[in-house]
């Protein structure tokens, strides 16, 4: 009697678990896909793919697209699109190069000025959209043409502008310094490991704190065993990534910027009223307006954020190349949009996460990097990336269709 009750109970719990997995499958799928893609490339390249050096490179190459993908996610969440970001990034990179090389501005002035310009540019593009309801497709395409022209104009006399400022160039190529501990763990970047350790401790402490708060509210929490499993998985992941990075030059400045962007935007979108308002506007603009949320204000804010991130992207790219070129930024918008969609945003609005888009960017960048290592021709690479994009979106549609 007791026994059958208990087995029933277990069966029910299992069923609940299956239900939860079913409901959330689309949320985790891309993460699993990423892991699988990485394992496949690791095998096909005899481990070169997962080597510290390659992963470090991959992250540096991904940085300037990933920051765009973060902004693009929010743009698509509020049912718009932003086609000018690539050219804007290119133009602002050139502006930074000119300011430093020809005008002799100090790098610490150039960077904030460029970021402010980016924000203003975003708000300018947003104006016809927010004020008059002009489709963002048109407004941003027009802006893209203008920035492209402006980029050609400023690089006309000189062609490529070489940047010599070491601080600026470190953004895309440099790494954080190491601790001066010669004897300890030779060949490893100690500060990277230390930061990894701190991150693990922080994540464990906040998880336990959140669980305690939930309990103090008398809310149900996952069982202790599940909770510990979760902690172990997350800690393991952070630890593994830090270990790999420490095998090469450690954490790069690009990664620092990317992490800061992700943390700030993840925080804003999930924890603050502003974030809630952005998703509400995307989910149902009319209901949002009647709830006292100004749709046009949110539109301005999101486009301004996109502009700011475009300026970061432009800085990271120019720094990585140590120069501004006439073709900088070409096609960035496509990569950013692809990353966002692979990461699960919905063009219908209101759906999409920052973390998802970062995973999307990682998937796309892993494909490029892995196929490069395998020596696959660029023509095939395009085809594969196109196929993966469409497959990801199709899968997302199928799993989300809950009718």
């Amino acid at each position, binding site marked *: 009697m007791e026994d059958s009750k208990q087995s029933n109970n277990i069966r029910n719990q299992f069923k609940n678990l299956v239900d939860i997995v079913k409901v959330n499958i689309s949320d985790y799928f891309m993460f699993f896909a990423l892991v699988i893609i990485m394992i496949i490339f690791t095998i096909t390249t005899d481990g070169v793919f997962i080597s510290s050096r390659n992963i470090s490179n991959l992250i540096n190459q991904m940085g300037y697209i990933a920051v765009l993908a973060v902004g693009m996610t929010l743009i698509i969440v509020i049912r718009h699109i932003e086609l000018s970001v690539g050219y804007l990034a290119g133009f602002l990179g050139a502006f930074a190069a000119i300011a430093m090389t020809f005008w002799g501005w100090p790098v610490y002035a150039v960077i904030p000025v460029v970021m402010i310009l980016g924000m203003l540019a975003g708000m300018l593009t947003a104006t016809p959209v927010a004020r008059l309801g002009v489709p963002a497709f048109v407004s941003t395409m027009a802006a893209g043409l203008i920035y492209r022209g402006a980029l050609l104009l400023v690089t006309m006399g000189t062609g490529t502008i070489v940047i010599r400022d070491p601080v600026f160039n470190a953004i895309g190529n440099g790494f954080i310094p190491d601790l001066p501990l010669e004897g300890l763990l030779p060949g490893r970047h100690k500060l990277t490991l230390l930061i990894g350790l701190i991150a693990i401790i922080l994540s464990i402490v906040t998880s336990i704190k959140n669980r305690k708060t939930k309990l103090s*509210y008398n*809310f149900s929490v996952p069982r202790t065993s599940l909770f510990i499993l979760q902690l172990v998985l997350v800690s393991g992941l952070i630890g593994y990534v830090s270990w790999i990075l420490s095998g090469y030059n450690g954490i790069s400045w690009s990664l620092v910027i990317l992490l800061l962007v992700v943390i700030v935007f993840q925080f804003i979108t999930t924890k603050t009223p502003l974030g809630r308002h952005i998703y509400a506007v995307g989910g*149902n603009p009319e209901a949002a307006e*009647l*709830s*006292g949320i100004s749709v046009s204000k949110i539109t301005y804010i999101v486009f301004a954020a996109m502009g700011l991130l475009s300026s970061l992207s432009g800085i990271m790219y120019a720094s990585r190349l140590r120069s501004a070129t006439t073709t900088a930024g070409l096609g960035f918008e496509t990569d950013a949009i692809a990353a966002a969609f692979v990461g699960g945003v919905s063009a219908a609005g*209101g759906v999409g996460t920052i973390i998802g888009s970062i995973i999307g960017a990682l998937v796309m960048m892993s494909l490029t990097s892995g196929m490069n290592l395998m020596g696959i021709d660029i023509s095939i690479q395009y085809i594969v990336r196109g196929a993966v994009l469409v497959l990801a979106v199709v899968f997302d549609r199928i799993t989300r269709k809950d009718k």
Partner: protein
Amino acid sequence: MQTPILEMKSITKEFPGVRALDNVTFSVRQGEIHCLVGENGAGKSTLVKVLSGVHPYGTYSGEIFIEGELQTFNSIRESEKAGIAIIYQELALIPELSVYENIFLGNEITDGMVIDSNESISQAVDILKKVGLDVNPLTKIKNLGVGKQQLVEIAKALKKDVKILILDEPTAALNENDSDNLLNLIRGLKEQGVTCILISHKLREVLEIADTITVLRDGRTVVTLDAHKDVVNEPVLIKHMVGRSIDNVYPKREKIQPGKEVLRLENWSAFSYNLGRDILKNININVHEGEIVAIAGLMGSGRTELAKSVFGNADGYRLSGKVFINGVEEKFRDPGDAIKASMAYVTEDRKANGLILIDDVKHNISLANLNEIVTGGVINENEEILVANRYREQLDIRTPSIQQKVRNLSGGNQQKVSLGKWLFVHPDILILDEPTRGIDVGAKYEIYTIMNSLVQQGMSILMISSELPEILGMSDRIYVMSAGKINGEMLVEDATQENIMQLAVDY
């Protein structure tokens, strides 16, 4: 005994976390009008969606027989072929297309590759005659009132040979006149041999028209009554539906002397750029503390426009006139300003502009007043859960959890979420636009009770309603609108259905 035209046996349908139908058995005789009643979330819509193939074969358990034959519909198309037509709770017409284009949408009459519009139009005329709708088939849907749109829906359903016509709350958005027309039409179809299944929360019309009534509660069949033999009346139905009796659907409230004036409109007019004409003309009304003021009128008389224009004018009309809140003139730039001035507006159309359907219950409830649960710039999600659970309990929102997407709730429960959202704003002036549309009697009673306790605490309510009994049962004072003007004002003691209607139809 004749085989029933439709038999559904032991139907069970589950969604994650909800058993919407639990072993339901449902049988319909040839040529009858069979009404399906039950509380919000009882499973009525789900049952007919199982029948029509929206939930395909294999996603439910149990068997469906039509004229004795087992059916395994995988899509709406297949059920249509078997002679089943369904009209959903939400209208599904394309506003920018004409009447005839909508009627043949998805089944276009073609001549080779191209649409044969002449043939379509001439057939449309015949069908429109059948449903007694006298409009030009070339009129765009958006230019028709809701009542006529509903008839177009039926015309669309009738274009093929229909054996069973299913209507899910067809009269929820209709006024008395349009409802009566529709009921007459259904009677006419019965004469022509069409079997009808009708879902409705308006018990009066159910009693008027039904041959048989089946009551669902919590996904189970409670009883099937023969309207011609068994004793059926409203109290009996209510008892079966909610499991207890409700003596008076409109709970009594101790009338108090109305307090100070909280809202006054002076010469309030609005011009719509879209329509190119005035939609509100010189409106003068007021509301006092502790008062329920009703605005009666026909569909399209400008009641919703009045509410929206005062509540921050989200539609961007050109306004003139003055609004006074607590005696102070206010100029709201947007709904946010109106909310700050302690107003709230529960919209008429919860799907279009009331709720974020893809988001969950708790986020919807907190949306208009996030400030209250923010500490240090961060939303306190634990507080949010408490708040949402509080309104879930208070309003008896039936949902497996407050994490459920609002889209997955039954219509009536969505309405309660919408109400909860605006109660959380703690307004002084609450504008309710058709507050009980699509809500079951039990829940109506609860909402009325809540309204009563709110005004007793000093809140003021401005209620727009198309249900005259609701207006007469709940309000203290009534304004009647017609064609954008206030046509009359009366105390509830002096009001009757007749004198309200007279003012409402008088232009």
